[in-house]
């Protein structure tokens, strides 16, 4: 970001604050265009989207849950929450960041990771997969596809290690999150 010529008023305010990563759970009416409303807001106001998952979760009530990971200064995160909450189709917004709030929340992500190689690299890839509890879901003479689930940073670590043993392709689902304990979002 160019601090001297900030692109928007949001940038001006965020200069002195460190960015934080937050996982937001956005409960919306399952209707056409609702995802476009949410991500359109992020684009229009210059907010970040690090990952995004969306699916119908309560079909009787026709509700969908958008789980969105964003980053920004605390004041920007606050702005994101009220802006999203203002959208007519949004029922509620909850902060499901793992270490946020009284009980925190659970965050999980799934990734498919393809590595290519032979010999020692191939063996090392298998050993690492075992150490990370990753499943082998596809194998050929010169490749593996591993499936790993876990928190974002564990998956990041796994992918980083795989880079040195022949990583060729990654597909990630983005974060799914739920509140801990009996209470719901």
């Amino acid at each position, binding site marked *: 970001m160019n601090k001297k010529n900030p692109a928007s008023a949001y940038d001006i305010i965020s200069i002195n604050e460190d960015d934080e990563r937050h996982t937001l759970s956005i409960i919306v009416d399952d209707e056409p265009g609702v995802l476009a409303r949410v991500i359109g807001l992020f684009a229009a106001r210059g907010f970040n989207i690090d990952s995004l998952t969306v699916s119908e979760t309560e079909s009787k009530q026709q509700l969908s849950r958008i789980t969105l990971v964003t980053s920004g200064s605390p004041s920007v995160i606050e702005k994101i929450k009220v802006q999203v909450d203002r959208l*007519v189709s949004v029922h509620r917004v909850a902060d499901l960041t793992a270490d946020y709030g009284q009980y925190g929340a659970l965050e999980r992500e799934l990734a498919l990771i393809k590595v290519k190689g032979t010999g020692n690299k191939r063996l090392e890839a298998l050993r690492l997969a075992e150490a990370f509890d990753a499943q082998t879901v596809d194998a050929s003479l010169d490749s593996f596809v591993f499936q790993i689930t876990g928190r974002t940073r564990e998956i990041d670590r796994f992918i980083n290690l795989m880079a040195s043993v022949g990583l060729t392709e990654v597909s990630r689902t983005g974060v799914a999150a739920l509140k801990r304990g009996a209470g719901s979002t």
Partner: protein
Amino acid sequence: MGKKITGAEMVIQTLHDQGVESVFGYPGGAVLPIYDAIFQQENVKHILVRHEQGASHAAEGYARSTGKVGVLIVTSGPGATNAVTGLTDALLDSIPIVCISGQVPTHLIGTDAFQEADTVGITRACTKHNWLVKDIKDLPRIMHEAFYIARSGRPGPVLVDIPKDIQFAEGEYENLSKTTHKTYTPPNTIDGKAVSAVVDLMQRAKKPIIYSGGGIINSGPKASKLLQKFVQKTNMPITSTLMGLGAYPGSGDNWLGMLGMHGTYEANMAMHDCDLMLCIGARFDDRITGKIDEFSPKSKKVHVDIDATSINKNVEVDLSIIADCGKFLNEALKIIEKRNNKFQSFDLWWKQIDSWKKVNCLQYKANSDVIMPQYAIQRLYELTKNKDTYITTEVGQHQMWAAQFYKFDKPNRWLTSGGLGTMGYGFPAANGVQVAKPDALVIDIAGDASILMNIQELSTAVQYQLNTKIFILNNSYMGMVRQWQQLLHGNRISESYSDSLPDFVKLAEAYGATGIRAKKPAELDDAILEMIDTPGPVIFDCVVANLENCFPMIPSGKAHNDMLLGENVSDEEVAKAIDDDGKIMV
């Protein structure tokens, strides 16, 4: 359950059930069923505009002057895209309007059909909410939700896109005008404790100021009355944004004039030096704050707004209340009365303010040969202030002079494009007001450039014999553009000279309206009186000094206490007023 009627009939029935008397629109292929339904009823009057942008601003004018929801009907494709500017304007200025757009039949959606546009996609960013109706069963609910969402909470524009087959389809209609919404719940309570805390702050304050905005107007006339009582009770000085003019009388004792970029010296200095800022229904817009990190450095700031997203958006405040402005004022007055509060004496503060007032920041050099634009507004004010007058404006220097020199004593009398700054807003908006208030004197204060942006609406005014008056401050320039070119582009007047202007008197006559021209200060009063007395639409071509600039001014990138005043500003000062940091600002 009601009887079966067509979708088109449901649209008209909803308008009637929602108390809509007049709508503005333009027919086309995809709305023909609705126009057929309009033809066969008498409850809702349709005003034919000449361009859909005109319909959108007319609906805004209707809404702003009455406090009701304004309605426009447009066809698919270009009809809808032409309305986008008005929808965006209404979004930024929080004006409740419902746009009903036709759409190609459901089975053709997505095929690039004739006059097809992704209207809900295009308008998603410029409406509070929008709908594409895909089933006749949903139409009554959506229509009534549209009105509810447009007018409640922070008001705004909504759009209902109705495919042609849905307009033809039959279904059961139910009057759902008392409807609410399952996910949308605007604030309707107030936190009494927070209001008490505000009153506590007021008691300790020595240099308080009220900074009010369009939220008071949107809250309804009662909020303006409460504001006047609140000011009277507390003796606090009050300033307002462009959008809030008229909530507190412009002739009132505690009035400091408008604040911000072209606000008064006293208002901006008081904002800068105050120790308590009470912002009611305004949003710390960049035209108001100037340089944000030097904005009112010594004050505690309280922000009352019905929209949570406005809080801490541009300026961090110490105390915020998310509620309707009228509710806040009512609650605050109750607490003040119950406590029988004694406030600090603000004598010293008022003395300071009076010394700022003595600067006489709105003075200009009078001229007996040429009409000064400020003088024209002053005369217009004097000759119309005792009438039932509504003023609209376009955007530019004339708009700022109108805000500075026309004093509004009542709310809903001042209609201007504040947030979006839409040239071409004023005239169609004035037509919208005149439709709602046929007996009022409605004047669009315009510039020679702005008026040409929607001049075609003169045809509408003539058709319905609306008495709308267009008062053009004609300086042959896009004056505000030229002023900025002088300020920060080395006086290179790039493309801002209004070359080849039409003869406005002949133009009026060509449309079947009346044209009047004044060139000398001595003939101004008589000409204005003639304009007022002439029935039907009138274009008043007021030929004013060409190169006058609008002062005072906070140059962009500067703080409130760093204003340029008109009288003593040299050309060199003007040229150097904005430094490099300020140049990137708009």
